[in-house]
């Protein structure tokens, strides 16, 4: 991302098949290459098993009755407790779709907010010279380093004074104010990897910073934007603490808050339902990642090097 290789400064060419093998031509035994390729697939598949196992186990557990989930690491399913899904869906007073929808609203707001404002802030840090640039950057980094648990109370006090607690605003507004330093930093690094000649050429043509950013850089930042969108999706979807603190009306609860409500440390918990609804709530994440990853990698291949 921060590479500014000489070749990167060449006119851009689009590579439609990013995963095509590089043209490394070497006289080498064809069978040996095939064997190596086969072995690589075997090794990768073994890793896939390790990666997939917990998810499969979660799915299998979501189909087991309560009391048969623990102490059972196998993936063999001899019961099919679909009731975990039907019961779990309605167990918390509101249908689970309410929580999915609430999470979706928060996530959508967070993604739009982060994409717009973090990229703008990143442009300023990466390409502009201005007063207080260093302290500003330092504060942004400090924000990543300070544990959330000590700022949540002052932040809550702030939001309580505006009267906006118990709504999605405390979860979404910060994203529209580029408070997620991680993504600002990420995009700073991405922008620095883009050839500076591009925007300098645009500037010579008379483009202002606005046009340079929107028309030249933004289209080239697809991978950074995709990364931001995907990571924002996943992290917001799974974020428990701030959503717990700010939302009090059960009809506004999001997925992670709702999932916890299945479990009571002191009495009997509905783990089956919890797992069933966990499976349901992982699906949007999986879809988001599967769809998003194309942009993540293709984008760079078409913008970065040749």
């Amino acid at each position, binding site marked *: 991302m921060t590479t500014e290789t000489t070749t990167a400064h060449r006119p851009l060419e689009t590579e439609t098949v990013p995963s095509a093998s590089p043209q*490394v031509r070497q006289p080498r035994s064809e069978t040996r290459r095939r064997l190596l390729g086969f072995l690589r697939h075997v090794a990768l598949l073994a890793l*896939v098993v390790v990666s*997939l196992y917990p998810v499969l186990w*979660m799915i299998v557990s979501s189909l087991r009755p309560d009391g048969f989930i623990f102490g059972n690491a196998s993936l063999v399913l001899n019961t099919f407790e679909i009731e975990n899904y039907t019961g779990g869906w309605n167990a918390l007073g509101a249908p689970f779709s309410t929580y999915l929808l609430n999470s979706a609203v928060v996530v959508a707001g967070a993604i739009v907010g982060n994409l*717009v404002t973090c990229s703008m802030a990143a*442009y300023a*840090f990466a390409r502009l010279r201005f007063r207080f640039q260093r302290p500003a950057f330092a504060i942004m980094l400090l924000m990543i380093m300070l544990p959330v648990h000590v700022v949540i109370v002052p932040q809550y006090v702030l939001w309580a004074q505006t009267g906006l607690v118990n709504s999605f605003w405390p979860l979404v507004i910060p994203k529209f104010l580029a408070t997620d330093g991680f993504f600002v930093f990420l995009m700073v690094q991405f922008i620095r990897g883009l050839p500076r000649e591009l925007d300098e050429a645009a500037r010579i043509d008379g483009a202002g910073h606005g046009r340079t950013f929107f028309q030249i850089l933004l289209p080239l930042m697809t991978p950074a934007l995709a990364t931001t969108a995907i990571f924002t999706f996943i992290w917001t979807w799974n974020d428990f603490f701030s959503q717990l603190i700010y939302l009090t009306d059960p009809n506004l609860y999001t997925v992670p808050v709702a999932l916890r409500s299945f479990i009571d440390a002191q009495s009997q918990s509905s783990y089956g339902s919890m797992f069933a609804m966990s499976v349901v709530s992982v699906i949007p994440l999986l879809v988001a990642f599967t769809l998003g990853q194309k942009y993540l990698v293709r984008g760079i291949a078409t913008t*970065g090097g040749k």
Partner: protein
Amino acid sequence: MSLAELQKLSTRSGGARVKQETPDNKAALFFLGPWLVGAVALTIGPMAASLYLAFTDYNLLQDPRWIGLANFERMLEDDRLHKSIEVTFTYVAFGVPAQLAVALLLAIALDRGMRGLPFYRSAFYLPSLLGASVAIAVLWRLIFGSEGLFNSILGTLGIDSSTSWIANPDTALWTIVMLHVWTFGSPMVIFLAGLRQIPREYYEAASTDGASPLRQFRSITLPLLTPIIFFNLVLAIINSFQAFTQAFVVSGGTGGPSDSTLFYTLYLYQEGFGAFRMGYASALAWLLVVIVGAFTVINFWASRFWVHYDD
């Protein structure tokens, strides 16, 4: 702590070239506008408040009371704090390099054109999607418990073990390090993106010169990837120092067995919310900022010697 230097380093590539131009204060105000509003209205206030609270006795329910440096003095004699620093450093020292190494290896393995690439990518990312959820906590017990899968596997290899890996103070932390390594998805994705940025013609030229794949890796892939490695390293260190949810996988958030998984942030949380000592927790938070800040500054400084910027 010289974060200014850090900033200088991070923008050094741009500095020289634009120096002659007039500063872009106006444009910066526009682009940084939202961030500025957020910083002033939402961030600096709470940050400053937490800094203030670090010098107070604050139990959340009553007004904070100024006690000067007492919180910091207490740190010197706080055995649990020292333990938590030890735990966290161990976690960072082993978890971060191991996770980045796995992520990098897999990114390289997945980089060259091969069938099923999107499938592998999604599959490998799955553990990161689940993170340290309740399901993982339950599962980790099933794997590393005394009657877990791991012991069964050892058994088939002829090693008889009935240890509970997650409940033994000597091994519990290592199972969390493994969990950390296992969620290599995010850095892997970023590495993959970085690998795609390396111009293919470099490899072509190297092949023509007869360089072996290993040599190509050492002289092309690795140097050109260093900015990405650096980026992942900086963020992984910052994030790992704040490891929190991971502790709930093994101990349900107590930090046990015998405080062997008492992460710094977990201890801070226990002090702040469990024991109502938010003043002390704030002091702990700022100590962490100093530690992580120092690591970040060192990182940026050291990057001059190993990170290859081609400008």
